[in-house]
């Protein structure tokens, strides 16, 4: 089967399983409404922190409120999209532990699609909505000399960011094939990364910024392209073209995550129970 056909098959399986879980969720409507609201609010809290900070200061790391909101909106939307599509893969540790992954292996659908759609959480729409809301608001508030290139960078940044976050989630899930109980480590890179990117890079230690630029390429989610759009310097000296690299980085991350996933799946040994 070609890679294209496998992708189509995977997406079809994802859609069917996700639709099933959505119907199931809707059985408890009150609970769903509350989880949706909670999901919206919890992300909003990160933003409330920034709002509260700005009741005390004029700027953070040299950026004004609208500029920080722009960074926040970009990463939150990207993270929210990845979380909606792939957030459930973090539950794989449990399936590896109790052996229920076996069921997925014998079904005629790609395992990754099944794991991603497992207990599909429509409530995660709350996170995307909230991120998008702040992002649009920031775009209205912020003072940018728009050029065609800058306009194009904005959607490119969000989509590439979503792929980068999604790759981290899949790689993290693959990691759980070996380290079953260490699911929480992945949170430091997903949720922790998201929190990190909500703030301007200028407030962090240079080594930390270098680390998330060169080693663990989270900086390409929003820092590099967003600072280009805002016309602000990046604390680590890099050539200007790096602002346009996110799609390339995203593809590389996705390939790497795919390789990790396949390696993990091959290494899987059932508990036999």
């Amino acid at each position: 089967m070609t890679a294209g056909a496998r992708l189509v098959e995977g997406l079809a399986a994802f859609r069917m399983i996700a639709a099933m879980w959505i119907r199931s969720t809707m059985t408890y409507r009150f609970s769903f409404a509350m989880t949706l609201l909670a999901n919206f609010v919890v992300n909003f809290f990160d933003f409330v922190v920034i709002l509260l900070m700005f009741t005390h200061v004029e700027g953070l790391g040299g950026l004004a409120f609208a500029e920080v909101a722009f960074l926040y909106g970009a990463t939150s939307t990207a993270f929210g999209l990845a979380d909606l599509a792939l957030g459930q893969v973090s539950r794989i540790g449990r399936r590896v532990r109790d052996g229920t992954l076996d069921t997925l292996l014998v079904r005629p659908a790609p395992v990754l699609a099944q794991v991603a759609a497992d207990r599909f959480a429509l409530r995660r729409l709350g996170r995307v909505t909230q991120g998008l809301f702040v992002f649009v608001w920031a775009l209205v508030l912020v003072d940018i000399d728009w050029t065609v290139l800058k306009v194009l960078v904005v959607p490119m940044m969000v989509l590439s960011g979503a792929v980068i976050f999604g790759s981290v989630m899949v790689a993290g899930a693959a990691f759980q094939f070996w380290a079953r109980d260490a699911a929480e480590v992945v949170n430091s890179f997903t949720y922790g990364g998201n929190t990190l990117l909500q703030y301007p890079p200028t407030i962090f230690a240079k080594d930390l910024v270098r680390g998330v630029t060169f080693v663990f390429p989270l900086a390409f989610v929003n820092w590099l392209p967003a600072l280009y759009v805002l016309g602000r310097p990046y604390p680590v000296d890099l050539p200007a073209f790096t602002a346009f690299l996110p799609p390339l980085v995203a593809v590389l991350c996705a390939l790497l995550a795919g390789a990790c996933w396949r390696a993990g799946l091959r290494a899987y040994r059932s508990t036999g129970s």
Partner: protein
Amino acid sequence: MRLYAAVAAGGFRRHATYRVATAAGVFTNTVFGFVLTFTFMALWDERPNLGGYDKPEALAYVWIGQALLATCGLMGGGGFAEELIERIKTGDVAIDLYRPADLQLWWLSADLGRAAFELLGRGIVPMAVGALAFDLALPDHAWQWPAFLVSVALGVVVGFAIWFLVALSAFWLMDGAGVVQIAWLCGLFFSGMLLPLTVFPGVLGDVARVLPWASMLQVPADVFLGKHTGWGLLEAYGFQAGWAVVLLAAGRGLQLVARRRVVVQGG
């Protein structure tokens, strides 16, 4: 009494079993500690003495928060609420109600055991890393350490009382996920986990400081930083103990109602 001590010991041992998960938790708390430290530094560089803290105190606050996150059940009730909800949902709670032990005391004991382990297993290392990497304000006097531990213990009881109420709501709602999330959000916001409550503006700050969640992080952190001494310390304890009594009593009331009117699931 011996029974509940055994349950508490069991709670401690049960959580101590998952060493890799504990190490993973410590790692995550430490990473978040680093990220938050830099944001707090940026804020306190601009506004020294914001909220009555100087910079080393503000940074210590970050790491106390990371150390107490698991202990005080600021993240989803340390798992006990979800477990109890699951038992209510499946009907297994009927077995718990048969036991010659009180439901609330049983779970409180188990949770105290859990909290004791989380404080040792997940609290000490992040705090030590934070203190090594940054200039943190540590207690000047030896008595502040036990005073802090008492405050943490009271915070754990308040945290338990809240999560117990949340869990019992499953008798009526069946699917507790929504209430759990709402409770988790309130805990996150009103405990001072996001920012110290002393930094909250105006009425919001006044309200946040008297809600029960304040006793889960803000009060212990202030005791640690030596903000409460003498009568002030007793007042702080009184505030925490007061909420603990009120919430435990509410949980007891709800438990009685649930016991009388509920048809257990599972047939």
